[in-house]
């Protein structure tokens, strides 16, 4: 039994969907950010699987940039969460329904 490209793609799809559902059903801002990380990782897995399949380096470069963007996203995202928590004392997204306070 060999592991084909499809195995990796299905696994990545499953991870992506779990992250997506997490964004849908969770209300905690931090957890939602973590679910986004999950989705980014699923995409990385797809890129790497294809890069390895086609023996091309381009996929790796994409993953490199995705990781960079993820780092930037986390820095800004968590700063926003901290600012929100300071102003409203909650990170529940349903309670954060005003743009200004």
């Amino acid at each position, binding site marked *: *039994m*060999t*592991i*084909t*490209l*499809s*195995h*990796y*793609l*299905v*696994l990545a*799809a*499953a*991870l992506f*969907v*779990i*992250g997506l*559902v*997490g964004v*849908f*059903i*969770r*209300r*905690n801002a*931090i*957890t939602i950010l*973590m*679910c986004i*990380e*999950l989705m980014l*990782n699923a995409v*990385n*897995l797809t890129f*790497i699987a294809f*890069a*390895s*399949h086609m*023996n091309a*380096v381009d996929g*790796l*470069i994409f*993953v*490199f940039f995705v*990781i*960079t*963007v*993820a*780092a*930037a996203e986390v*820095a*800004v995202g*968590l*700063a926003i*969460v*901290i*600012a929100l*928590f300071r102003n409203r004392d909650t*990170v*529940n997204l*349903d309670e954060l329904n005003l743009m200004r306070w």
Partner: protein
Amino acid sequence: MFTAFVFYLFAAVALAGALFVVLQRNPVYSALALILTLFAVSGLFFLLNTPFIGILQILVYAGAIMVLYLFVIMLLNLSREESILRAHRLQRVVGTLLGGLLLVVVAAVAIRQAGPGAPGSVPGAAPGTAEAVGRALFSDFLFPFEMASILLLAAIVGAIVMAKEDLR
């Protein structure tokens, strides 16, 4: 055979961790589960013959990004239990259904279209070395690389402005 065993092991750990991230009420546990998933995915990168990206994943994600998450969770003391039922019931049901639908569609396409070839089946130079990535990064992808550094700079400035208490 060995490859298959390792693949299924890592896949199972990654999926279990991912489910834990979503279903766990305590953000600290969610973060720990996410770290587990990241390690499993990193293991898959090693299995796909790209050790450089695999180690990068551990170095950046597990070593820095997740520490930052834990730091913020502790700083804001968010570890009290959040009820998952607080989300609207309809939202949960529809969200899960739509997610399941997407999974079915993507999986069907992946199985039908990707064909039988095993990853890394092409003989020749392994693409995943640090040298190969570096060469590509500093020749063909030099401009995106510089853009990424500007993005990081913008993120640093943005994060400081956002999180600083008294800017005025």
